[in-house]
């Protein structure tokens, strides 16, 4: 505490030596981060770099005691136990997924949990007139009685900000506020941040769009692998997008991947002119004229940021598990195949291992054995009756082959670690004997050792002549495992490159360029 006094008064927020661990993963490693009075401070980094975790620590979503380190706000040490306590001192976070109730009006949403009331009876006159004031401040010409569900995402974002203002905000945290906004709405939102800045309200802006970051931010902090890389002052330092990207991705990636000799053959699977629309927002195209292929023995990566439409594409191909009004053709070994339902896709030798193994991949309350055989019960049954001895034999084979660490194959899936759960999901799909495997974030949330094992399995499958499509948000993984890379952004394939010619910078560039065109 021997800090210069003047410096202290200048800083509104200081987070010191924050470390936060999850079972098996260090999400934040001794991170320090500070925000000056009335500045816009951008926080950038790859998916999984720890940005959201840091903000959750700050806002009390992860309560005091679940992390180590200190948080000082306006010179006082704060120990938030929940989000209400952080909002009380004027720290308001606006999450990427908006937290508005769709069938309530703007007014009702603005004062939810903070109702203008006397003895439990809501004072609607005061609420509505306050709402009008707040809407004026954020420049939203809507009636306070409009239901949230009838407004576009851009306007909903403004309602969130108005809600923050109603709480006497001093530091506003926005988690990718423009991710789902169009150009005009994004511009409007950035202008609003600049306006707040002139009124002395500081903001933390988490964003993947480097162009808007360099446009409005006063300082930029780069996070990578749960650690602060550097903080730049845009008014003093020379800040280029190249420099930011290098900071975001530059890390040593040797020895993290098993070596492989690729032996790439004929095209085994291809989709042509693939289009799909969002199941609810009917006019939003989630897959936009996709053409892609994979060869025998090839591992093809699909890189892109969250929300680029990679999972949606994979699931729409896998028996229309996602999306509406799907059109396009799928070919296997040059023959058109029917993938209009999941069982047909499986029968045609396609497997899709989901990114969310708990929600979509496993039946957690069931045994490992039952999970492994679920997608191909026909193989261990005759006339609909399961041959239990055979089932035990094959599931044990997979346990040994994939090295699933468990006390027994009769153990429930819920009691396994993330890495072993992922191996069970893989076993399930290997047992369905596919020719084409789509792996969606196969190493998400599992530790380094298990990752290495998964990569080894992928290599083995490729050497057996299967075609593998791997979706991953971790660029080093894409570069370390794949033969060829597609880059997706906004539902489109925006780039394609062989891995020899690829680099993290190059992939990031093609994503960013695409986004700038959209801006």
């Amino acid at each position, binding site marked *: 505490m021997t800090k210069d006094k003047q410096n202290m008064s200048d800083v509104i927020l200081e987070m010191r030596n924050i470390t936060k661990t999850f079972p098996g993963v260090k999400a934040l490693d001794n991170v320090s981060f500070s925000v000056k009075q009335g500045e816009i401070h951008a926080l950038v980094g790859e998916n999984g770099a720890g940005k959201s975790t840091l903000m959750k620590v700050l806002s009390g979503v992860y309560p005091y005691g679940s992390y180590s380190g200190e948080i000082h706000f306006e010179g006082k040490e704060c120990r938030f136990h929940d989000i209400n306590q952080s909002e009380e001192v004027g720290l308001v976070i606006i999450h990427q997924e908006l937290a508005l109730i769709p069938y309530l009006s703007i007014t009702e949403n603005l004062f939810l949990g903070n109702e203008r009331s006397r003895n439990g009876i809501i004072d609607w006159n005061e609420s509505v007139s306050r709402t009008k004031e707040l809407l004026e401040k954020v420049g939203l010409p809507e009636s306070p009685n409009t239901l949230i569900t009838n407004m576009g995402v851009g306007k909903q974002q403004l309602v969130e900000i108005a809600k923050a203002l109603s709480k006497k905000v001093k530091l506003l945290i926005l988690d990718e506020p423009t991710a789902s906004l169009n150009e005009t709405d994004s511009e409007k939102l950035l202008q609003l941040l600049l306006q707040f800045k002139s009124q002395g309200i500081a903001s933390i802006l988490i964003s993947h769009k480097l162009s808007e970051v360099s446009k409005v931010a006063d300082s930029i902090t780069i996070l990578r692998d749960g650690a602060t890389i550097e903080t730049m002052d845009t008014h003093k330092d020379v800040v280029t997008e190249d420099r930011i990207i290098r900071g975001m991705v530059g890390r040593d990636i040797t020895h993290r991947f098993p070596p492989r000799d690729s032996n790439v053959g004929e095209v085994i699977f291809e989709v042509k002119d693939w289009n799909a629309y969002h199941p609810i927002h009917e006019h939003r195209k989630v897959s936009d004229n996709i053409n892609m292929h994979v060869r025998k023995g090839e591992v093809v990566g699909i890189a892109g940021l969250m929300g680029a439409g990679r999972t949606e594409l994979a699931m729409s191909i896998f*028996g229309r598990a996602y999306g509406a009004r799907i059109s396009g053709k799928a070919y296997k070994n040059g023959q058109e195949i029917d993938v209009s339902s999941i069982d047909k*896709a499986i029968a045609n030798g396609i497997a899709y291992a989901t990114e969310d193994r708990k929600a979509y991949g496993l*039946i*957690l309350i*069931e045994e490992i054995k*039952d999970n492994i055989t679920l997608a191909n019960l026909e193989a261990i049954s005759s006339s609909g*009756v399961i041959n239990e001895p055979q089932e035990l034999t094959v599931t044990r084979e997979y346990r040994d082959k994939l090295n699933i660490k468990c006390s027994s194959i009769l153990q429930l899936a819920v009691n396994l670690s993330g890495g072993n759960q992922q191996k069970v999901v893989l076993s399930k799909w290997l047992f369905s004997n596919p020719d084409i495997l789509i792996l969606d974030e196969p190493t998400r949330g599992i530790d380094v050792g298990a990752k290495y094992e998964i990569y080894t399995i992928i290599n083995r499958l490729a050497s057996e002549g299967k075609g593998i499509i791997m979706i991953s948000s971790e660029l080093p993984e894409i570069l370390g495992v794949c033969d060829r890379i597609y880059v997706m952004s906004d539902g489109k394939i925006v780039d394609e490159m062989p891995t020899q010619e690829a680099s993290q910078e190059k992939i990031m560039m093609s994503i960013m360029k695409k986004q700038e065109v959209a801006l």
Partner: protein
Amino acid sequence: MKVPATMNETSTNNSLLKTLSGLFKNNIREYGMLIALVAIMIFFYFATEGILMRPVNITNLVLQNSYVIIMALGMLLIIVSGWIDLSVGSVAAFVGAIAGVLMVKWGWNWALVMALCLVVGGLIGAWQGYWVAYVKIPAFIVTLAGMLIFRGLTLVMVRGEAIGPFPVEFSRISAGFIPDYFKMEGFHLTTIIIGVIVSILLIWADLRTRRNQIKYGFEVTPFSFFVAKQVLITAAVMGFCYLMASYKGIPNVLVIMFPLVAMYAFLTNQTVIGRRIYALGGNEKAARLSGVNTPRLLFLTFVNMGVLAALAGMIVAARLNSATPNAGEGFELDVIAACFIGGASASGGIGTVIGAVIGAFFVGVMNNGMSILGVGIDWQQAIKGFVLLLAVFFDVYNKSKSS
């Protein structure tokens, strides 16, 4: 029927006490329910001064609970797939009313009408299953509507009166007993012989499972435990048969019920469709992404429930020897309670046929015992409510402790 054995591959510890406690811990659901059933039977045996276990009363217990058990088989599948069916009592009454009108008023052939009634049950199930599985209206709503619709239609059909009596062939389903080939005075020897055959079959099946488990390297309970278990089961089966033999022998309805129970136990444990129903209830999305046609499967569980409710409806009508407007009222609650007391989980994916049957007997013994004691229907309901809550609490408590 699975053998509740500690199927662990970890190192064995042969100390008696440990084996016992391990056995209990790993199968707390199965054994807990069985122990509860035995305990409540002992309690009522003493409370009723032995009336509960008299041959005539045991026979009555089977007759009174046959339709609850039959419907519980279908309900279990629906609960395992994550839903519920509130309409079964009304559907049973409605089918009974159809049987009454066709057989008694129109004089149709009883066998033809029975077949027709099963088809009607299937169609009712298909109707409800359609709304639940394809239109995605929650089953609670659909079957609540069904409960009202089919009760209303029953009233329309019987016009507020009882239709009867049924042809004697039909009423024999519930009132008759299997013939005795030995014609011994006051003792039904055929029943004992059937009991012996069933016991031998059960031991054989258990032995085969055990041999398989040893062959595939699973730890099994020591042989002495296995023998003790077989002795207990055989004693229970033979005791049960002895009691019934001392009265009029095996009731016809048991001939329908027992194979059904065995069939559904097999279906849930050994077949692809059974496995898929558990998967559907355990995680619908994961099941769908594994290629299970989840809407069709859910639809079929409702069709199945409709058929079983129709069968139960006919058994009720045959037992009362008339189709009445308020037949089957409140049955849905006994059926649902049987499944939950038997260890089924309200969130789906968990539950066994044997558990549901034990649960049904548990409810049956409570109803029967309290009636003998002269407990009013008012208190019976309240007590049953508490027991249901307690049973589910026990389950939830166990689950939270183990996780």
